[in-house]
C-alpha cells in the first residue's frame, strides 16, 4: 500500500516540474508518470498474484475506520489500466502536445491530476475518499476537455460534460446516504442479506445505476460522451475512454460486491441496458464520419458488453450459480482491461492521424497506410482486437461472456441469456463492419486530399506507447492463462462463489493458445510462400475499363456504411441535406448526411432550450451587485430560522 501511495503521489505531481521548466517539461512528466506507473503496477500485480490485501488507516478521529483505502483484487484490476494508460498517454503527449501548443503546461499538470485521482479512486472504500477521487477525476477531466477552449465545440462539450458529471455525483450522494442509513457507517462494505430486496435497496440500485451509468456512458445516459471524446486532445480521449468511463463500471462492480443477494431483476436490468448500449452504440458508430466520435460511440458499445457480463454474473449471484458468476464477472472484468488497452491504442493512433492530416473527417483521409506504416499497424491491431476477433484480447473476454450465456441456457426455465447471445453476435458483426469502414477509409486506398497525401509518420515517442499497448493486447490474446488466476481472485472478491469453480476449469485456455499459435504459424508460412512473388507495383488498380478514375471516386466511408445505416434507420434516423439533381444540365448540388445523437440532439437539447427560455424570465434577480446576492443569503437564513421556530 505504501508503494501504491507513492505511485499516486508521483503520478499526481508529474506535471508540476514542467511548470517551472522552460523546456522538456513533457519529458519530465512522462518520466515521473512512468516511474509512478511501474510502482503502481507492481503493487497492483502483487495483489492480483495472491499477495496480501493492503489497507490504509488514517489516525484522524472521525475517519479512523478501517478500510479508508483498500487495494483489493477488484481495485487492482482497475488500477492496472489506469497506470498503464497514464504512462502511455504521458509519453505520447511529449510530442503530440508539445510546449508550442496552447495550454500545454496546464494540460500536463491536469493530466497528472486526472491519473492521480483515478488511481486514488480505485482504492477508495470509504464514501469520503471515494467522492473526493470522483470529483477530482470529474473536474480534471473537465479542464482537459477544455484544453482548446478557443473552439466553441470544445467549450460546448466541456459544459455538457460538467453538468452531466455533477448530476451523476448528486445521485451518488443519495446512494451513499442510503448506504449509511443501512449500515451505520461510511465505510463502503458489505450490506446485510435481504437489504437489496427492500425498497431502500431498490432506491440504492436505481441511484447507483444512474450515477455510475452516467459516468460510464450507458446508452440513454451517454449524451456527454461522444462530443467530449471528440473535442479533447487524443491522449486525453484515450485516458477518458480507456479508464475514466470505467470508473462507472467500478462503481457498479463495488455495489455488486456489497450486496450478497442481488435480486434477479437487477441482473436482467443490467443485461437489458448492456444489450441496448451495445447494439445502439455500434449502430451509431456506423453512422459517424468523425473518426474520434466513431471511437467514442464504440466506447458506449463496449460498456454495453461489460454490462452484459456483469448482468450475467449478477444473475448467477442471485440464483446461486457459481459458474455464471465466474464466467460473467471474469468476462466483464477482463473486458474492462481489454477495452482500455485497445481503445487507448485506437485513440492514440487516431491522434497520430489527426495530427498528420489536420482533420477528423474520415472522408478527407485515405491511403495513410503507405505514409504512416506503424500508425497503420497500430490502428489495425486495435480494430482487430475491438472487433473481438481471435487471436487478440478482445476475443478472450467476449468468449467468457458467450460461454456464460450458453451455460445459462441450461440453468433457467426461460432463456434470459439469449439476449446476451444475440446481442453479442450482432455487436460483433457490426463492430467488424464499422472498423473495416474506419480502417479502410483512413489507411487504405489512395489519399482523398492533399493533406492526406503528404502526411508524415509520427515521432517515436508517440509510436512506442502504441507499441506497448498493442503488445499487451497480443499477449492477453495469445496467452489468456496468464490472467486467469488474477481474474479468479477478483471474482472471488466480487461474487458469492467461495469454493466455486476456477476459470481455468471452465474454459480451455491452452486450447485457445494452441489454435491461435497454429493460425499464426500457418499465416507465417503462407506469407513466406507469397513473399518471393511480391513486386513493387507500378500499375493502377484494375478499374473495370473506366480509364479516368480519380481518388475522389473511391467508395467513401459513408457509402460503405450506407447499407447498414439504411437498414437501421428506424433507430438511427439519419438526416440528409441537399441532394437531388434535376434537369438536363444539372448544376453542382451539395449533399451531406448525418446521424445526430438521439439523446443529446433530439431530446436534451430542445428540452434545455425551452428551460433556458423560461429561466431568462428570472434574469432580473441577477443584478450583478454583490450586496444584493448577500442579502438573498441573509433573507434565506432568516426565513429558515423563522420556519424552524414556527
Amino acid at each position, binding site marked *: 500500500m505504501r508503494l501504491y501511495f507513492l505511485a499516486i503521489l508521483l503520478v499526481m505531481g508529474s506535471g508540476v516540474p514542467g511548470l517551472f521548466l522552460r523546456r522538456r517539461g513533457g519529458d519530465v512528466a512522462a518520466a515521473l508518470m512512468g516511474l509512478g506507473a511501474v510502482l503502481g503496477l507492481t503493487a497492483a500485480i502483487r495483489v492480483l498474484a495472491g499477495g496480501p490485501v493492503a489497507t490504509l488507516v488514517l489516525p*484522524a*478521529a472521525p*475517519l479512523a475506520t478501517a478500510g479508508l483505502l483498500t487495494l483489493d483484487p477488484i481495485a487492482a484490476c482497475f488500477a492496472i489500466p489506469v497506470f498503464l494508460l497514464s504512462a502511455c498517454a504521458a509519453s505520447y503527449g511529449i510530442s503530440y502536445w508539445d510546449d508550442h501548443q496552447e495550454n500545454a503546461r496546464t494540460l500536463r499538470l491536469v493530466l497528472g491530476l486526472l491519473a492521480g485521482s483515478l488511481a486514488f479512486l480505485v482504492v477508495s472504500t470509504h464514501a469520503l475518499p471515494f467522492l473526493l477521487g470522483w470529483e477530482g477525476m470529474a473536474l480534471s477531466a473537465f479542464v482537459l476537455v477544455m484544453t482548446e477552449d478557443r473552439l466553441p465545440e470544445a467549450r460546448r462539450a466541456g459544459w455538457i460534460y460538467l453538468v452531466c458529471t455533477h448530476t451523476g455525483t448528486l445521485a451518488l450522494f443519495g446512494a451513499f446516504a442510503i448506504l449509511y442509513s443501512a449500515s451505520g457507517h461510511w465505510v463502503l462494505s458489505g450490506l446485510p442479506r435481504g437489504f437489496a430486496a427492500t425498497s431502500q435497496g431498490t432506491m440504492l440500485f436505481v441511484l447507483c445505476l444512474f450515477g455510475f451509468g452516467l459516468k460510464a456512458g450507458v446508452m440513454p445516459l451517454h449524451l456527454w460522451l461522444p462530443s467530449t471524446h471528440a473535442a479533447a486532445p487524443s491522449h486525453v480521449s484515450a485516458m477518458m475512454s480507456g479508464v475514466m468511463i470505467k470508473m462507472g463500471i467500478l462503481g457498479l462492480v463495488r455495489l455488486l460486491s456489497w450486496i450478497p443477494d442481488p435480486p434477479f431483476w437487477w441482473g436482467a436490468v443490467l443485461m437489458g441496458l448492456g444489450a441496448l448500449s451495445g447494439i445502439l452504440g455500434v449502430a451509431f458508430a456506423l453512422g459517424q464520419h468523425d473518426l474520434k466520435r466513431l471511437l467514442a460511440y464504440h466506447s458506449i458499445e463496449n460498456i454495453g458488453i461489460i454490462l452484459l457480463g456483469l448482468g450475467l454474473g449478477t444473475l448467477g449471484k442471485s440464483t446461486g450459480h457459481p459458474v455464471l458468476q465466474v464466467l460473467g464477472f471474469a468476462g466483464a472484468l477482463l473486458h474492462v482491461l481489454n477495452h482500455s488497452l485497445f481503445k487507448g491504442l485506437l485513440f492514440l493512433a487516431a491522434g497520430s492521424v489527426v495530427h498528420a492530416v489536420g482533420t477528423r473527417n474520415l472522408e478527407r483521409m485515405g491511403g495513410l497506410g503507405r505514409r504512416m506504416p506503424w500508425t497503420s499497424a497500430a490502428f489495425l491491431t486495435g480494430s482487430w482486437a475491438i472487433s473481438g476477433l481471435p487471436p487478440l484480447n478482445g476475443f478472450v473476454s467476449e468468449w467468457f461472456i458467450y460461454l456464460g450465456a450458453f451455460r445459462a441456457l441450461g440453468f433457467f426455465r426461460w432463456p434470459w441469456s439469449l439476449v446476451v447471445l444475440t446481442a453479442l453476435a450482432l455487436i460483433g458483426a457490426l463492430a467488424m463492419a464499422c472498423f473495416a469502414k474506419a480502417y479502410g477509409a483512413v489507411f487504405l486506398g489512395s489519399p482523398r486530399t492533399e493533406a492526406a497525401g503528404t502526411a508524415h509518420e509520427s515521432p517515436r515517442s508517440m509510436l512506442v506507447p502504441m507499441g506497448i499497448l498493442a503488445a499487451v493486447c497480443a499477449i492477453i490474446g495469445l496467452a489468456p492463462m496468464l490472467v486467469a488466476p488474477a481474474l479468479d481472485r477478483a471474482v472471488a472478491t466480487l461474487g458469492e462463489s467461495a469454493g466455486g469453480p476456477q476459470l481455468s476449469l471452465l474454459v480451455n485456455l491452452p486450447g485457445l493458445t494452441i489454435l491461435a499459435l497454429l493460425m499464426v504459424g500457418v499465416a507465417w508460412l503462407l506469407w513466406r510462400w507469397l513473399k518471393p512473388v511480391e513486386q513493387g507495383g507500378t500499375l493502377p488498380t484494375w478499374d473495370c475499363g473506366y480509364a479516368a478514375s480519380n481518388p475522389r471516386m473511391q467508395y467513401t466511408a459513408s457509402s460503405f456504411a450506407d447499407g447498414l445505416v439504411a437498414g437501421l434507420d428506424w433507430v438511427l434516423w439519419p438526416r440528409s441535406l441537399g441532394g437531388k439533381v434535376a434537369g438536363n444540365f444539372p448544376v453542382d448540388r451539395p449533399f451531406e448526411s448525418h446521424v445526430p445523437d438521439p439523446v443529446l440532439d433530439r431530446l436534451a437539447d430542445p428540452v434545455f432550450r425551452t428551460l433556458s427560455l423560461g429561466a431568462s424570465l428570472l434574469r432580473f434577480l441577477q443584478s*450583478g451587485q*454583490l*450586496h444584493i446576492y*448577500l442579502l438573498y443569503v*441573509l433573507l434565506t437564513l432568516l426565513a429558515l430560522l423563522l420556519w*424552524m421556530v414556527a
Partner: protein
Amino acid sequence: MSPDFLIALILLSNFTLVATSRVNKAIQIAVIQGVLLGLIPLAMGLGRHPHILFMVAAAITVKGWLIPFLLRRAIKEVQIHREVDPYIGYTVSLMLCALGTGLSLILAHVLPLKGGTQVILLVPAALATLFTGFLMLVSRRKALTQVVGYLILENGIYLFGLLLVEDMPMLVETGILLDLFVGVFVMGIVINHIRTAFDSTDTRHLAELKD
C-alpha cells in the same frame, strides 16, 4: 472571568463595528473580537482538553495576527482608509444591529437547540454576530469593509460551534479556521485585482461584469 462577560463584550464590539467608518478601526475591533472569542473556551473551563487548547491557540494566532496582518497590508496597497458613503447609513445600521440582536434573543429562546450549556448568552450572541456580519456585508461598499464583515460572520459561526465544543471533532474546527484564512486570502487578491481593473475598490464596479 465568566464567559457571559466576554460574550457581552463581543456584543458591544458588534455595535461599535457597525458604527465606525474608519477601516483601520474596524480591523482593530475585529481583532479584539477574535481574541475574545478565542478566550471563551478557556473561560468555559474547557482548558483541560489538549485539542481545545490547540484550537484556542490556532484561533488567536489566525484571527489576532495573521488576518489583520493581511488586511493591513491590503490597506497599505490600496490606500483606502474610510468607508465614504455606505448603502445603509451608520445610524440606521446601528438600529438594524440592535434589531438583529433583539431578534436573536427571541430566536435563541424559542429555537429547538441542544440544551445543557451553562452560558446563557452563547446562542443569542452567535446569532447576533452572524447578523452583524451579514449587515456589514450587505451595507458596505468598499471591499475591505466587506472582508471585515465576512470575518464577523465567521465569528458568529465559531460561536455556534462553541455550543458543541466538547463533541465537535477537531477536524471541523480546523476546517473552519482554514476556510476563514483562505477566504480572506482570496479576497485580498480579489481586492487588488478590482483596484487594478477599475482603479478603485468600490464593489459597485463589479456589476459591470454582469452579462
